[in-house]
């Protein structure tokens, strides 16, 4: 997985609350069983004026020229609520988003972000609103820098502020760790636990030969 260490980019404010994963990637845009080819479907319901011809909606924030090459979203509370579809994160990533800053996140979505090298960064709504105002003045120059190593957020030419990211998330992202690989290192203790657990909770285990 791509590590996340320091990232600098154009930020776009999308401050609606409860932006759900159906809005991030509508079901009808999930056409194949794979993880790619999803970027054109990102925010499709809002991004296009006409869904069939894909005529861009000029008002939608990510279509506006001043937010060209945006890689950071400034979002409202409960961002990524709803469906567990990881396609929402795959679409954001393919589009070029590396970090989403919001007062709070849908829990499954936040976890999916970390598994794919995106940083879900919680900040108080007030601070996000201030950042959004500053960004909007000149998005291409008022870029944001997120330094996960030093745990700081900086707007171009201004002083840094500390950010707080829980230590597991931070480590996973900084080192670009593969969660499965990491857990497989604990195979012995997992096996020992299961052996004991089978004695304690025989009812929790389905027999291999059960043919129901």
């Amino acid at each position, binding site marked *: 997985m791509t590590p996340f260490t320091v990232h600098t980019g154009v930020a776009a404010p999308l401050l*609606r*609350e409860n932006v759900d994963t159906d809005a991030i990637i509508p079901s009808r845009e999930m056409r194949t069983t794979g993880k790619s080819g999803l970027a054109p479907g990102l925010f499709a319901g809002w991004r296009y004026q006409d869904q069939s011809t894909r005529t861009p909606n000029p008002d939608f924030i990510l279509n506006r020229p001043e937010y060209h090459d945006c890689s950071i979203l400034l979002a409202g*509370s409960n961002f990524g609520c709803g469906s567990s579809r990881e396609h929402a994160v795959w679409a954001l990533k393919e589009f070029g988003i590396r970090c989403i800053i919001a007062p*709070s996140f849908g829990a499954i979505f936040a976890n999916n972000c970390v598994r794919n090298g995106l940083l879900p960064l919680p900040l108080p709504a007030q601070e996000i609103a201030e950042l959004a105002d500053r960004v909007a003045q000149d998005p291409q120059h008022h870029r944001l820098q997120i330094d996960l190593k030093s745990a700081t957020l900086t707007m171009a030419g201004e002083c840094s502020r500390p950010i707080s990211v829980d230590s597991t998330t931070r480590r996973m992202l900084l080192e670009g760790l593969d*969660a499965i690989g990491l857990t497989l290192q604990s195979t012995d203790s997992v096996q020992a636990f299961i052996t004991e657990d089978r004695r304690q909770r025989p009812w929790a285990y389905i027999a291999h030969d059960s043919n129901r």
Partner: protein
Amino acid sequence: MSGQTAFDKLWAAHAISTDADGSTLLLIDRVFLHERTGAVALESLATAGRPILAPEQAFCTMDHIVDTTLGRSDDTRMPSGGEFIRATRKAALAAGIRLFDLDDPLQGIVHVISPELGIALPGLTVVCPDSHTCTQGALGALAFGIGSSEAEHALATRCLRLQKPRNMRVAFHGALAPGVSAKDMILHLISQHGADGGRGHVVEFSGTAVQNLGMEGRMTLCNMAVEFGAFSGLVAPDDTTIKYVQGRPYAPRGPAWETAVAAWRHLRSDDDAAFDQQIDIDAGSIAPTITWGTSPQHAVAIDQPVPDPASEQDPARTSAMQRALTYMGLTPGTDLRGLPIDAAFIGSCTNSRLSDLRSAAEVLQGRRVAPGVRAICVPGSMSVKRAAEAEGLDTVFRAAGFEWREAGCSMCFFAGGESMGYRERVVSTTNRNFESRQGPETRTHLASPATVAASAVLGRLGAAAEVLRA
């Protein structure tokens, strides 16, 4: 030291190890997949050369993309749906996991069949790459939705790494008024405390009104814990639970059953257990509830007018409400009961079980759907369908003018295939009223099966009492 909550006990029983920062390796007992997100997880594992550690504890169903019309096949109305179905079948077969395929008599929506077959049990950890996995918490399980990567993780390692969520108790005191159901309880809760009111918590639903619910009502309640923003929801197992589980195909039998029941009896919150948050609700004060907007928190008692965004303090909330009103084609102060509807939908993992169909049929008995209203009933599983037919419910639905379908998610969500019409107003027993969830710009009102049935008859939004009185 204070006692433990039911969730604390579940967590402790599955915690293999905990790091200094609180991140815990948690044992996962069951993994359920479906064709929407299942094939991608299985294929990705196969590509990585990672075997499934306990295939006998993993399951897969076809529910999301399959058609629900009679005589359905792999080739779905959703463009490229067949690709998902075939890929999932191939991957499940190769992985050696039990698949409830299109023509399987046990096929159905994952959160309906998992409890129905005794795959989810009290005291287990159950995961599925589907956000409504919390439904299965009704059994007293720790059941939660995950992404595809985490599904791979659970299949390959039998574990997930998690930070322990906090404890919340939502107690519904007293008795429900007649005609009020579990759906009204959960919509009421979310309307009062917001779509992220449960964030970071496992919510234990308790109180007399919850104890008095049957298992299916408890599933409806827990189903929408995720719409409350919670990590999951659960109800501590009691006699109702144990009676429900006994004899189900995958439930333990013989001596294992006795051991299980003894363990499940302990799975309740201790009297002195500490909750990080507690919400108390007078169940008797809850009326039939319906959503007016595009978030489950946009809900009111059906006899209440559409709220005015100007009365809201929080600016973010005000603008979301304004947006929702525009999308829904509504103005503040409107009486919801006057709104004509285009369609009525009964189904989904929220409300498609036998008791849900019974409650709708009670309203529909001897009545007809209003002219011009399209009405559809989709049983949650083929087992539910057979049981309903055995007691003649299908005849009631059909005679009233409802379509009577095969099991699946159907028009709970729009994937490019069959859907509700453009900007149509739909009253639905589902769980999400998000923009375009049920069709292009479709306007969804979430409500209980009784309210949906009554609205279908009235041709406009309305409560069951209006119909039953007439």
